[in-house]
């Protein structure tokens, strides 16, 4: 039974990844659709990181001692000036650990 569950889950995740790539789907993405899709990466990935930084247990946490908030905002600022993503993440982690211990 567990195998059936696993295989169905695998089909579901594969379906979500493949659905819009299928040639069977008769759909032509025109200029407007392309324009809309241009914003997929920034919009969806922002939707992924923002709740981690600004909320905790489904509550808004904008307390200035919240290490996620402090380090997240520092990382946003740093990412404007530092070209290497790895360095931004590294410095962000340092700020996160420092804030966790001292704030």
């Amino acid at each position, binding site marked *: 039974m567990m195998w059936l569950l696993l295989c169905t889950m695998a089909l579901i995740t594969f379906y979500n990844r493949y659905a819009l790539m299928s040639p069977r789907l008769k759909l032509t993405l025109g200029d407007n659709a392309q324009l809309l899709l241009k*914003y997929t990466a920034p*919009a969806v990935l922002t939707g992924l990181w923002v709740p981690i930084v600004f909320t905790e247990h489904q509550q808004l946490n904008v307390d200035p001692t919240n*290490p996620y908030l402090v380090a997240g905002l520092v*990382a946003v600022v740093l990412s404007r000036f530092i070209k290497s993503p790895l360095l931004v*993440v590294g410095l962000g982690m340092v700020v996160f*650990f420092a804030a966790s211990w001292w704030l």
Partner: protein
Amino acid sequence: MTIKSKSEAWSREVTVRAIRDVLPLAIAVIPWGLLAGSLAIESGLTPLQAQCMSLLVFAGAAQLASLNLIQLASPWIAIFSTTFVISSRHLLYSAVYRQEALKLPRLKRYILAFLLTDEMFIVSENYRKETGAFSYGYAVVSGLVFYIVWNIASFAGIVLGGVLGNTDELGFEFAVAAIFIAMVMPGVNNIPVLGAVLVSAGVAIVAELNGLSYGILLAGLSGMTTGFVLEKWRGKSS
């Protein structure tokens, strides 16, 4: 032209670049892989089943959420709908790659879809922005590296069990946030992208506070619509 782009796609340079770009993102999810492996065993899966979950389902957040549901002996329909909702954002990535995928033979299309993750998508999109062209080779190499690291981490979690203890204090969750910040924020350099990011952020927070499971999809679509409208409006006024 086709021949040139084909050889470009598999060049050593592209391969090395893809590995270098995706490796930090893959390393950041190792703790989650460990967790997915150990949680699967705790949930009553056999080691083989636990490994196959990472090999076949290959979706971190969906795996962890469904394992929690399995532990609670939830009905299958709840497990399936949760899996669908959490991984539904991939529908958008899939749409972004539609034009490119339609040019590929079936097997390559399946491979591209199977390896499609947040991490593969963001590095490939940044690479496309930089070079001006989509590279199948880059996408597959980065996706494959991520797949391998995820599965090794899951394997370690299966073998070692819950060695991590309380993961909240170790900053794993922040590492994921920092990576997405570092990958996305440098691209925010005009009004439509700024609008897209701000609206997506607002919707994501409201959705999280209200416990909406499809919050990420909703945030993504709202942000995309905002970017679209602002770009149209800017085009008209200039």
